[in-house]
């Protein structure tokens, strides 16, 4: 216990003495989060407290990757990502405000309560994930640091399925490598993979 405290103090000292660029970036991020907090309140009525969705049709955005959240909002705003209500909502925010929203929500924990999934699909989906998706959606879709790909683990199943309908119908602009991966797997395998992501719950192992 005492050692832990000393270690934390030592790390704190190192961080304090490190390059000002780091501090500046963190200061900018802190300001964005502060601005984002007020803007984010309206989102929570649907997307849940601090972005932890309680509804199958609505994605969890708390803890989601910063650049992915900002990119999605901007795509809703310019209509390149199809939506019912999100375009009308995204239109109300400036780019700076969208970045602040993304900073705020990405700074929250990604809540993963258990969901109803098909165990057989989960097993098959894991195999597909390892074969086709693993290189971008790292660590079973739980990666938080190494890529710009959205977190998928623990995301709401109904939302994932609805979103995949749009992707397969060519209504959503996606990366080429995602497109080619999808061409190589059949619809059953895709659905199984979504069950695999949705089935992951609880804290990171």
């Amino acid at each position: 216990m005492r050692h832990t405290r000393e270690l934390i103090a030592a790390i704190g000292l190192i961080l304090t003495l490190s390059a000002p660029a780091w501090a500046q970036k963190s200061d900018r991020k802190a300001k964005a989060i502060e601005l984002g907090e007020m803007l984010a309140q309206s989102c929570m009525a649907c997307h849940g407290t601090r972005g932890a969705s309680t509804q199958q049709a609505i994605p969890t955005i708390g803890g989601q990757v910063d650049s992915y959240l900002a990119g999605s909002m901007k795509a809703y705003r310019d209509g390149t990502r199809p939506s019912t209500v999100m375009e009308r909502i995204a239109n109300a925010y400036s780019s700076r405000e969208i970045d602040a929203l993304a900073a705020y929500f990405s700074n929250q924990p990604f809540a993963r309560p258990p969901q109803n999934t098909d165990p057989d699909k989960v097993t098959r989906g894991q195999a597909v994930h390892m074969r086709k998706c693993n290189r971008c959606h790292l660590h079973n879709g739980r990666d938080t640091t190494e890529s710009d790909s959205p977190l998928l683990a623990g995301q709401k199943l109904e939302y994932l399925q609805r979103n995949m309908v749009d992707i397969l119908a060519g209504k959503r602009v996606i990366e080429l490598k995602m497109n080619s991966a999808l061409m190589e797997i059949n619809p059953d395998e895709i659905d199984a993979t979504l069950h695999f992501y949705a089935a992951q719950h609880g804290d990171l192992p």
Partner: protein
Amino acid sequence: MTATMRRRFLKLAGGMVSLPLITPLVRAAELLPRKGTRVVVVGGGFGGAIAAKTLRLANPEIEVVLVERNRSYSALPGANWVIGGSRRIGENRLTYDRLEGTYGVQMLYGEAQSIDVDAKTVVLNEGTLAYDHAIVAPGIDFRFAEIEGYSAAETPALFPHAWRSGEEIMALKKQLDDMKNGGLVVVSLPLPPYRCPQAAYERISQIALLLRRTKPRSKLVVLDASPAITSMAQLFVNGWAREYEHLIDYRGGQAVLKIDAPRARLSTSGETFRADVVNLIPPQSAGLLAQKSGLVGEDKRWCPVDHSTHESTLAAGVYVIGDACLGDDLQKSASAANAQGKACALNIAATTARRKTQTHFYSNVQYSLLNDRDGASSVAFYRGETRKPTRMEKGGGTSAEWSELEGNYARAWLGGILAEMSS
């Protein structure tokens, strides 16, 4: 409220009852001893409950007391769907147990009588609650006197309004279920501002759905005091034409002026109807608590607030949120109350921590169901940059058409907002 506090409260309440003659003479006792900065929230509806939770999330140092008259809350949004048959009223009920258990909101079940602005206390029959800031979410009351023949005690049972609590929808539904095929239903709407006009047009759609399915020879006459539909007008016009063409007879500019409820009659300036079922939604004002606390403005109806903070312009330190506020005509909704509650709570938490407050920014997202499948939504954004409510030009708008997808989102919206305020 801890067990000790509850015991103390009951003891105190019991003591008051046994000494009725002395009560007015002694200074009312503090119900819960205050330890630090305290915010008292009055009213546990869509605005108040989420304001209490948000305060505790934003700054757990703040003591938050939520005064609410009912232990179980029955929400009005989605209650219309019970008429059409796609929802059970039980799904609209919630309790405050998790606000208390998870977030440490102190619940005080009782009826706030008034706010004493000078003493900074909320006054209940049993005693008082001192506050540093008060958030008041009193909801609505009715201006019954404007309808000749209306009896506040007797008319609501005969001509249910079902406009204050979700539970009231059951009396209206029973009348509709008991009606003969070929009957006449009249729905009467007041002039805005009133609580959630869009919900009134949804109500009409859901009654029409029930009639079409179970008593298709019936008629539904709508007497709207407004000259035309005030929310999602084109969507309702098109949707009714498609789904309920020979069923709904919509008449704009027709205020109900006089009623004889025991004889099932109601009259506009030019016509008298004898109806089998009447859903009479009377004109409205801010809730009684606002009136008794001097929070109602010159119009004698609504509470004027500074829209950059939602602080009452008539009482410093008192913030009024939700339907009771004077604002945009279409702003009175569960969604707007929820968003105002959160914005207000964040800024009170910031002030308490000596941090900078932020401009209020919030959306009003209203979903409606046309039948048991298709939904649509209207969205508006507000920015509290001035003392007046500033509806933003950028963003917002209504759906292009009714869709099954938005029907799903309507249900998800309701599930989400109910979970947010109670868990």
